[in-house]
């Protein structure tokens, strides 16, 4: 008697547990991603706050914190590299985003008009997005090489003396911009292509019947329709361009001097070359705040544009 009832009990409990789990499936299915986000983003941001008001050192493998208050802010005010890095980052972002947007839109329009080989162009244009950025940096480093690189070789054969490219303070930032345009134009191309392909071609036919020429069709019909896509894509690419690190690390290391120093690279150096974890954390925190404003604005813009459609 006793035995059977005990078995019944466990069976009943198990049944209840599985019903409970099943009824709440949606909650525990979402739990892992929330835990990941909390542990690997919220907690690190908390750490960043604490690090930015501390000095820390590993003593016999154990981390020791010393509270230093606002000392790192003082360091920031006297740091001559930060304004340079900010200026370079802004210049870099503005220039590459503009060039990439123009090229990306042009390519998208052209590819949408090419009936044959469109798949080929699409595939090839996508390649730079998938190559490891460090490999891209290496490829360009070989090509930029003063003595043996192909760029200066070609210039030599044209009777010109090639410049030092990445080692020339006036050209270092331009050199890495060229690489970035090669790398990221594809991204804007893909987004613009999606926009261009959804354009209503009947409308352009109608305009053509009414005597509009090709340029007028694009200017007065397609461009206004594409404007939301272009604005959102520009904003998105602007935010992503601030991440730039890999190629500059490889090609110039931020130099010569601070001529191609950007904010991500400088924070890396503060952390791992100068081993000032606290000060690096303060710079990272400020970057996070500034970029968050951009992201919020992007999200508002994206929602606004989607509502207009």
């Amino acid at each position, binding site marked *: 008697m006793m035995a059977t009832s005990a078995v019944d009990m466990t069976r009943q409990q198990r049944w209840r547990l*599985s019903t409970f789990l*099943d009824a709440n*499936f*949606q909650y525990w*299915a*979402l739990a*892992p*991603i929330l835990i*990941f986000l909390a542990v*690997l*983003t919220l*907690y690190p941001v908390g*750490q960043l706050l604490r*690090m930015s008001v501390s000095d*820390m050192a590993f003593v016999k493998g154990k981390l020791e914190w010393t509270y230093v208050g606002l000392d790192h802010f003082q360091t920031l005010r006297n740091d001559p590299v930060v304004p340079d890095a900010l200026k370079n980052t802004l210049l870099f972002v503005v220039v590459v985003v503009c060039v990439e947007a123009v090229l990306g839109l042009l390519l998208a329009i*052209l590819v949408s*008009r*090419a009936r044959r*080989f469109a798949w080929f*162009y699409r*595939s*090839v244009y*996508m*390649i730079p997005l*998938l*190559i*490891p*950025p*460090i*490999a891209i940096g*290496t*490829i360009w480093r*070989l*090509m930029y*090489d003063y*003595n*043996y690189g192909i760029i200066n*070789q070609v210039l030599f054969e044209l009777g010109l003396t090639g410049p030092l490219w990445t080692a020339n303070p006036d050209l270092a930032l331009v050199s890495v911009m060229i690489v970035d345009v090669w790398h990221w134009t594809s991204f804007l191309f*893909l987004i613009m292509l*999606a926009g261009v392909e959804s354009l209503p071609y009947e409308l352009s036919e109608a305009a053509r019947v009414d005597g509009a020429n090709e340029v007028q069709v694009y200017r007065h019909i397609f461009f206004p329709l594409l404007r939301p896509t272009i604005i959102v894509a520009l904003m*998105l690419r602007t935010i*992503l361009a601030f*991440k730039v*690190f*890999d190629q500059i*690390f*490889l090609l110039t290391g931020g130099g010569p001097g601070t001529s191609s120093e950007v*904010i*991500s690279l400088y924070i*890396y150096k503060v*952390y791992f070359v100068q081993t000032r974890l606290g000060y690096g*954390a303060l710079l*990272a*925190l400020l*970057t*996070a705040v500034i970029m968050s404003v951009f*992201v919020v604005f*992007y*999200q508002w813009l*994206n929602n606004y544009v989607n509502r207009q459609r």
Partner: protein
Amino acid sequence: MKKPGTWLLHGVLMLFALIILAPVVYTFLTSLKLFRDIISGSWAFDPTWRNYEQLFMSNRNSFIDLTRNSLVVGGLTLAVVIAVAALGAYSLSRFRWRRAISGLVMAWLLFVNMLPPIIFVGPFYLIARTLDIYDTPLAIVMAHSILNLPLAFWMLHSFFADVPVELEEAAAIDGCSRLQTFLRIVLPIARPGIAATAVLVFVFSWKEFLFALTLSSTPAAMTIPVGIAGFAQEYNIRYGEMAAAAFFATIPALILVFIAQKHIVKGMTLGALKG
């Protein structure tokens, strides 16, 4: 559009294709050259695999170790990311949630995707040191998991949304629990999409540099990009081996472009235009 226009169109498009392909081809050719052919700058040379042998066979380089690390990191990352993102994406795409909650998760993922990763470098370094996983593949897997979560989530979310609800209702009527429905009905139907997501996550992990650099210090955990960057910091530049390493790291991208083109476009632009 009459002949001349079409020729011009394809001419311009081919020129851009050439601009993209030429550097990759140039690197491949350089990787087949001996040093004397590189410095002579001549177009004719005897191709040789020596640089690749140097990369993988000699004691000077540890590219076998680095390749193993890259594969381990990529494999573990995609396993973790797909499992976590699939459950979360299914939950949010199929069940009723308050807008505040679903909106919060979406916005949070957007932030993770868009903020510069340098923000997380310092804390991740401390976490890795404190947990004593610094300079192990595990530390890099931790970073790559969170970096790739948004992309995987958005892609899977859209694939699950395409699965017909009727199938799930039928499964429920036949007595499947929700978990069973998910595992036996939804996952198999969404398999092509999941595979594409997994491949993309792997490639993104394969090419990631910043965290691999800051969370490793020896060939025990270093991945291929970190090894390549090492070449650039040497005083005597080994051009041939550098080119070989860069080309080797590019191979997954070249394969991927031709097998999963459609899905890559989706993955790249989806996160872009969904808030």
